[in-house]
């Protein structure tokens, strides 16, 4: 809509001879008119204002002595911190794997035809979504107060073998259990959402082919459910990674706890919080990249032509830039008629 020319008097360029490159512009031929792009003054002002603000903030980050970048540098790769990052990763990994395993079982319990299984799963999800994680963790931490000894035996009958509960569930164990149980409640709903998003015809086809029940779930339903599960699960795992910082209440040496211990000793609060922040950002970024590739893997077959990989996209971008540069070096390129360029 940039050019408004009476269309009756505007034949396409191909039809009018003498409008090739170098031909003198004729006033009634839109193909040879110069285009003046619209100017967005307000947009420019806004951009300048934002750039100034960002620059000011960056300058402050670099020069304000409060951030104490020297202290940050001393600690960010120190052995204590790296070990604490490792503990954080372990907690995240265990709770993710166990949480999603239990969550998947709960999801299929809720989807099962047995009212007993449905009710149990529903109740579990209801309870564990209702209790704040920190409350639950402290509960598990004090498990030995609840159940001094854990034993195996006949339900409501004699016990054959038992142990002191604190001796098998150390603090780390209690933390993993707490995070897992909490995670499972959310994972269950995510998995269930993914499963009910799979076309019912898929299950019918699998049943009609006589594919065994478990195999139907593993090979036909879950891979297709993954498309709906992954984006939410990615969110959930990143939330969990940061959520592990809650276990500092149990004095477990994960990232946030360790950082607190150090600044409790030396009083350098801000740079040490920066250390923790930097690590959480790095880990979250890695998870986001991983998520991208896992999603890609499960998108196989979903589209006629799969979307390009980042590498292909980068190559395409370079090619576009080159083409643009080559065009700029051309002498005069008359504009194509509007109808063609669309």
């Amino acid at each position: 809509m940039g050019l408004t020319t009476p269309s009756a008097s505007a034949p396409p360029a191909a039809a009018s001879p003498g409008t090739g490159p170098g031909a003198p512009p004729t006033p009634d031929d839109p193909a040879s008119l110069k285009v003046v792009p619209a100017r967005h003054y307000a947009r420019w002002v806004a951009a300048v204002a934002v750039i100034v603000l960002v620059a000011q903030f960056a300058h402050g980050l670099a020069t304000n002595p409060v951030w104490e970048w020297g202290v940050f540098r001393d600690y960010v790769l120190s052995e204590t911190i790296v070990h604490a990052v490792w503990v954080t990763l372990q907690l995240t990994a265990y709770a993710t794997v166990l949480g999603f395993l239990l969550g998947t079982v709960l999801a299929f319990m809720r989807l099962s035809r047995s009212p007993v299984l449905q009710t149990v799963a529903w109740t579990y999800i209801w309870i564990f979504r209702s209790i704040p994680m920190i409350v639950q963790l402290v509960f598990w931490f004090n498990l030995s107060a609840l159940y001094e000894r854990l034993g195996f035996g006949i339900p409501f009958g004699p016990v054959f073998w038992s142990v002191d509960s604190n001796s098998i569930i150390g603090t780390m164990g209690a933390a993993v259990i707490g995070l897992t149980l909490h995670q499972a409640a959310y994972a269950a709903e995510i998995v269930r959402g993914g499963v009910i998003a799979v076309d019912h015809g898929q299950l019918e086809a699998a049943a009609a082919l006589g594919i065994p029940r478990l195999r139907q779930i593993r090979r036909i339903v879950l891979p297709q459910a993954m498309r709906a599960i992954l984006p939410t699960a990615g969110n959930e795992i990143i939330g969990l990674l940061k959520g592990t910082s809650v276990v500092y209440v149990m004095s477990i040496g994960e990232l946030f706890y360790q950082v607190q211990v150090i600044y409790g000793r030396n009083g350098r609060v801000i740079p040490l919080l920066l250390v923790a922040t930097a690590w959480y950002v790095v880990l979250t970024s890695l998870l986001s990249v991983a998520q991208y590739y896992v999603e890609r893997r499960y998108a196989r077959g979903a589209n006629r032509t799969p979307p390009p990989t980042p590498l292909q996209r980068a190559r395409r971008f370079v090619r576009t830039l080159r083409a643009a540069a080559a065009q700029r070096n051309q002498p005069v390129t008359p504009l194509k008629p509007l109808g063609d360029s669309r």
Partner: protein
Amino acid sequence: MNDVTVAVEDTTPTVDDVMVELHGVHKSFGPLEVLRGVDLQVHVGEVTVILGPSGSGKSTLLRTINHLEKVNRGWISIDGELIGYRRSGSKLHELKEKDVLKQRTHIGFVFQNFNLFPHLTVLDNLVEAPVSALRRPRKAAEETARGLLDRVEETARGLLDRVGLADKADAYPRQLSGGQQQRVAIARALALEPKVLLFDEPTSALDPELVGEVLDVIKDLAGTGTTMIVVTHEIGFAREVADTVVFMDGGVVVEQGPPAAVLDDPQHERTRAFLSKVL
């Protein structure tokens, strides 16, 4: 739970050369009685085409045959074996899901919407059931699958110079045309070497120019003596391929017989009314 009442004395499947037998089949969804006593016999190597207006219970009938729907009354047998039940003495025991799944491997089902597994390649679609349900070795299953792809390809080859399906073994279903997808779905059903093939409106979801290639494959199967029950609205196909045409309406078989009799000289008013609309 379904309320299953089966008259045990009647459960004596005719053996001879009857492949599929339905006896007094009733099926309701809640208060809606969809099948109201259907009797049907399909002989070995015969093609039975089921015609009938929308909502007359054709799909439901096909689905009861492979026990995707449980019947409320009556019984169904394939090759002399009761579907979904086991008879011992004067009792009928409902089969466990595992055994029902095993019975289904003898019954090929082709859906209107293909229902191919979109996340698996064409070859994996064909190999999945033989490997997991019949425990065939993967290598052998793949070889059979490639042979079947060639077969559903060749019969459709006459039409145009189409891209070979065998070359598409590693493609994903969504990269194929509708006609190709349905031919793959037929090959997938054949991969189990079923005793009988059921088709539920196999060409209804296809563009008109793709109908022919799918019907050609079904004709080819008919020529090689595969027992089939085909629900379709393609009267020309019924006339050419069917041994028996069954006209259904309101959950009962209104009339049945050779195509010439049912299509050209229908005895019932309802059949005549339906045919005058379709032809």
